[in-house]
């Protein structure tokens, strides 16, 4: 039993990490479409932008439910600490997702009076992305815990660092959305998206650099993790690969490639995610609760692991199938409604 309670939380941390990473990338690009909405006021362009993600958004958002649900299943103590600690940002994010989610359907049935739902879609996407960044930043900055419960106040999460990561997330999702449009659309929509991606890429890189300097300077444990020897040597591929991904993204945009900018932007995101994981593991709720402290009973983790190993490959297979079904460029006027 000793061994099982050591490695099960590690397996679960990897599964949960993969689910969150998938969520960030998948819902990231479709939230990004909403973030870019204000810059494209023309109705026809907005139709195309929305149609490029309409068949996928619901499946993408399900990874967020798996993220929350997975935390509840595998690490109930962490779930019980994080949710009250980020009470306001979590609920505001959910309400923003309500507006944005219904806008996908309401916008079409409301036409020609759909301005309200354009606003709901854009506003909901921006606020949801910002709050996700705030929660992430707040978590990295640390949560006050006493006797296994959150012991801070309603606004503990409100720090300069969390606000900065919130803005960075909006820019990052915007980059994913813009590169998605470069890949999935053509003509003026793709042109504008390419120009937007060229503006967002440097901003995202700057944000990543600032977070990479800010966190080790703020927290000695993160400094120790990255800059002590031999860690520095083992971990140096992370920033190097990040630079490479940024370069291929930029070059893909310059050379008018369809899909390299999107793929490189995903790589950027995953590297950023891996960087944050390296900084904070084994803490699930920094700076005190580790994945072993928060783990559910081994029987629960095992029962659910069977389901994940059986069902996750099937889920991934049909997710790929859906994306393959709706492959290729979306054209103006090619509505589904």
């Amino acid at each position, binding site marked *: 039993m000793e061994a099982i309670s050591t490695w099960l939380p590690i397996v679960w941390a990897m599964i949960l990490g993969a689910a969150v990473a998938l969520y960030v990338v998948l819902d990231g690009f479709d939230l990004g479409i909403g973030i870019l909405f204000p810059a494209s006021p023309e109705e026809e362009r907005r139709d195309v932008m929305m149609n490029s993600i309409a068949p*996928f958004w619901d499946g993408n958002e*399900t990874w967020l439910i798996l993220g929350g649900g997975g935390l509840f299943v595998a690490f109930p103590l962490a779930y019980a600490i994080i949710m009250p600690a980020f009470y306001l940002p979590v609920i505001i994010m959910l309400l923003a997702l309500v507006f944005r989610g219904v806008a996908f359907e309401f916008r079409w049935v409301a036409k020609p009076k759909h301005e309200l739902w354009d606003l709901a879609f854009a506003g909901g996407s921006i606020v949801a992305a910002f709050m996700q960044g705030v929660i992430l930043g707040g978590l990295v900055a640390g949560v006050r815990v006493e006797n296994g419960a959150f012991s801070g106040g309603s606004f503990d999460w409100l720090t300069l660092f969390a606000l900065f990561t919130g803005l960075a997330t909006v820019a990052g999702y915007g980059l994913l959305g813009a590169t998605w449009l470069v890949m999935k659309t053509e003509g003026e929509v793709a042109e504008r998206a390419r120009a937007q991606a060229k503006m967002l890429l440097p901003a995202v890189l700057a944000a990543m650099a600032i977070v990479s300097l800010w966190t080790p300077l703020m927290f000695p444990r993160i400094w120790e993790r990255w800059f002590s020897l031999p860690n520095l040597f083992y971990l140096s591929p992370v920033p190097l690969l990040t630079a490479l991904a940024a370069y291929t993204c930029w070059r893909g945009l310059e050379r008018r490639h369809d899909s390299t900018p999107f793929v490189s932007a995903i790589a950027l995101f995953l590297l950023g995610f891996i960087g944050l994981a390296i900084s904070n593991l084994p803490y699930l709720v920094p700076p005190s609760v580790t994945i072993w402290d928060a783990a*559910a009973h081994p029987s629960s983790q095992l029962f659910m692991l069977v389901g994940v190993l059986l069902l996750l490959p099937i889920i991934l297979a049909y997710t790929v199938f859906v994306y393959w079904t709706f492959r290729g460029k979306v054209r103006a006027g090619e509505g589904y409604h």
Partner: protein
Amino acid sequence: MDPDAVLLARVQFAFTVSFHIIFPSFTIGLAAFIATLLVRWRMTGEEHFRTLARFWTKIFAVSFAMGVVSGLVLSYQFGTNWSRFSVVVGNVLGPLLGYEVLSAFFLEASFLGIMLFGWNRVSPNLHVLSAILVAIGTSFSAFWILAANSWMQTPAGHEMKDGIAYPVDWLQIVFNPSFPYRFAHMFTAAYLTTSLVVLAVGARYLAARRFEKEARTMMRMGLGMVAVLAPLQALIGDRHGLNTLEHQPAKIAAIEAHWDGSKPGELVLFAIPNQTAEENSLEISLPNMASLLLTHDREGLFKGLKDFPPEDRPPVLAPFFAFRAMVGAGLLMIVIGAVGALLWLRGRLFDTRWYLHSVQYAWPLGFLAILAGWWVTETGRQPWLATGIVRTAEAASPVSFGAVLVTLILFVLVYTVVFSMGIYYINRLIENGPMGAAIGPEPGEAMPSRPLAAATDAARHAIEEAR
């Protein structure tokens, strides 16, 4: 957490969960209805089945979107409002919710994309299959969430150590004592609710002499289901009630407003139960009838509220009145089904004007019954969150009164705007009818612009009126 904040957190959760339940209970049945329409279209080749499937798919999409976003809120509210709950029962309930996400949510969300947007992208058979997979996904979802809720009502297969529940036997946890009854009752309720909506929409068109071919199909399919399911639901409900008497006697005592367990219970038709005086005022009741129903013996005894210490009693008013509302709605559905079946047998279903004109307003009955039923079972479980394991008041999060109040106000504002708009749009889709609601271009046809679609509608309307 202070008692006022607990009360607010309960109000907030009751509000969001009550809003949510409306949409899945509609889309579970609607997914199956659309899949059936598509299968019949493939088998018979009759185009009006496809027209109807496309029409209801639009309504499904709007309802499903509202169900998804309101459900997402709930999966986080367990933590934001009831964090102690996840610590105490997370080991047991976590995997049930996890299986719901893995087996149901991904299935329905992924194939929904093909069901909504794949009309011309994939082969007809694959499209029909997607609709069937969405219907299966919604049923799996109901299975797991009802297993979780039933375990909270009648926990089994676990052991308690230091105030925390640990799993012992997963089969006993999933198939806990009340689960088969609750699942059958809720699943039938979902199908019944959708059938009633379909029947009412068919009647609405026939009453206005619009889309008559489609409307007749809707009425036949809707009425066929209501006539069978409404009486069946009464039987299932009876079994469910007997199961509750066995495992949650306090809930039954509250439903019946039965205070004194040493006497046979009368069937209280109306009363104002008074929790502090421990009696009913303005009572109208049938002597010994509750005992007959619950124990199948006129002199049979079942526990009264006074048999439980006051701190273990559920509130009486909510389960008492909600139960009567549910049963009233159920009886009305049985009447609608029986009268409709009689008219159908005599060949008068489609031209009995009074029936069409009244049944078109019957669509909310199923929703009313489902909401009332959930209020019965959830308020009747109080003061426990998970019976005998953790009380609702102990499970609350360490969150301030102000934070809960602000978010409660936000929820009420947002849900009122979003969901009233949603219902308005659904009504408008129904008003436009099956012909005005093309989802996409027919194969080989240009994208219909709005005026064209409206013109087709008007032309068809005119033809039908001339007939």
